[in-house]
């Protein structure tokens, strides 16, 4: 299990991605699976900055990566205001572009690309997002 903390700003998204890619490579994922994990974590961390912290440099993004049997578990924790991705409706990607609401695309990506997306909030720990992906899943 590896844990790293990053100040919550957009510039750090690249360092977060590099950390996640290194771990996913160790877990023997394919290049497409690694890209999918990288995308889901990038969207999750952007949401932390946008919604939980409501701006840059308001707190830390703590990331814990565990290589599990046949996959990877990534826990993303922040001390921002409660933000449950489940409350965001999925965009209707079949609706006409002119009227289509694009909000929620990042969460849509997370749900599509990972096998498990779970949100928890507690007063002591804050927001905890758990992302799981299995090899070949």
């Amino acid at each position, binding site marked *: 299990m590896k844990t790293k903390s990053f100040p919550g700003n957009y510039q750090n998204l690249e360092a977060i*991605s590099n950390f996640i890619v290194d771990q996913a490579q160790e877990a023997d994922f394919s290049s497409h699976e690694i890209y999918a994990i990288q995308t889901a974590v990038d969207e999750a961390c952007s949401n932390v900055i946008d919604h939980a912290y409501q701006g840059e440099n308001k707190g830390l993004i703590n990331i814990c990566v565990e290589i599990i049997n046949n996959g990877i578990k990534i826990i993303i924790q922040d001390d921002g205001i409660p933000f449950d991705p489940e409350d965001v409706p999925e965009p209707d990607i079949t609706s006409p572009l002119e009227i289509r609401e694009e909000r929620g695309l990042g969460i849509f990506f997370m749900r*599509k690309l990972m096998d498990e997306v779970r949100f928890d909030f507690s007063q002591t720990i804050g927001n905890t997002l758990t992302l799981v992906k299995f090899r070949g899943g």
Partner: protein
Amino acid sequence: MEFIITEHAQIDIIKIKGRIDSYSAPQLEKAITALIERGRSQFIIDMEEVTFISSSGILLFVNLFKQFLRENEGKIAFSGVSDLVVSGFKLAGFDRLFEFFPNQTSALDHF
């Protein structure tokens, strides 16, 4: 992310290198907006050296497409996009909005 803009008569080629994410997408948007304000409206986005694009990057191009549609003017196409990078467009169903060419030359030939 780095980008280089090259003007070819009516068409601007924007060659991007690196990641297009919540950090870099606003910088790119600013540069494209400045081009549009100068009256430019035909863009080939060369993504051969783009390693990653997030939803914020994809939405930048979708919003540009919508703007061109509303104003009935302007065109955007992509060249050299890798399978990995195009996968985000496909997942959101946005791949059908754009033309994707294998390289700059074929994009310029068909633009």
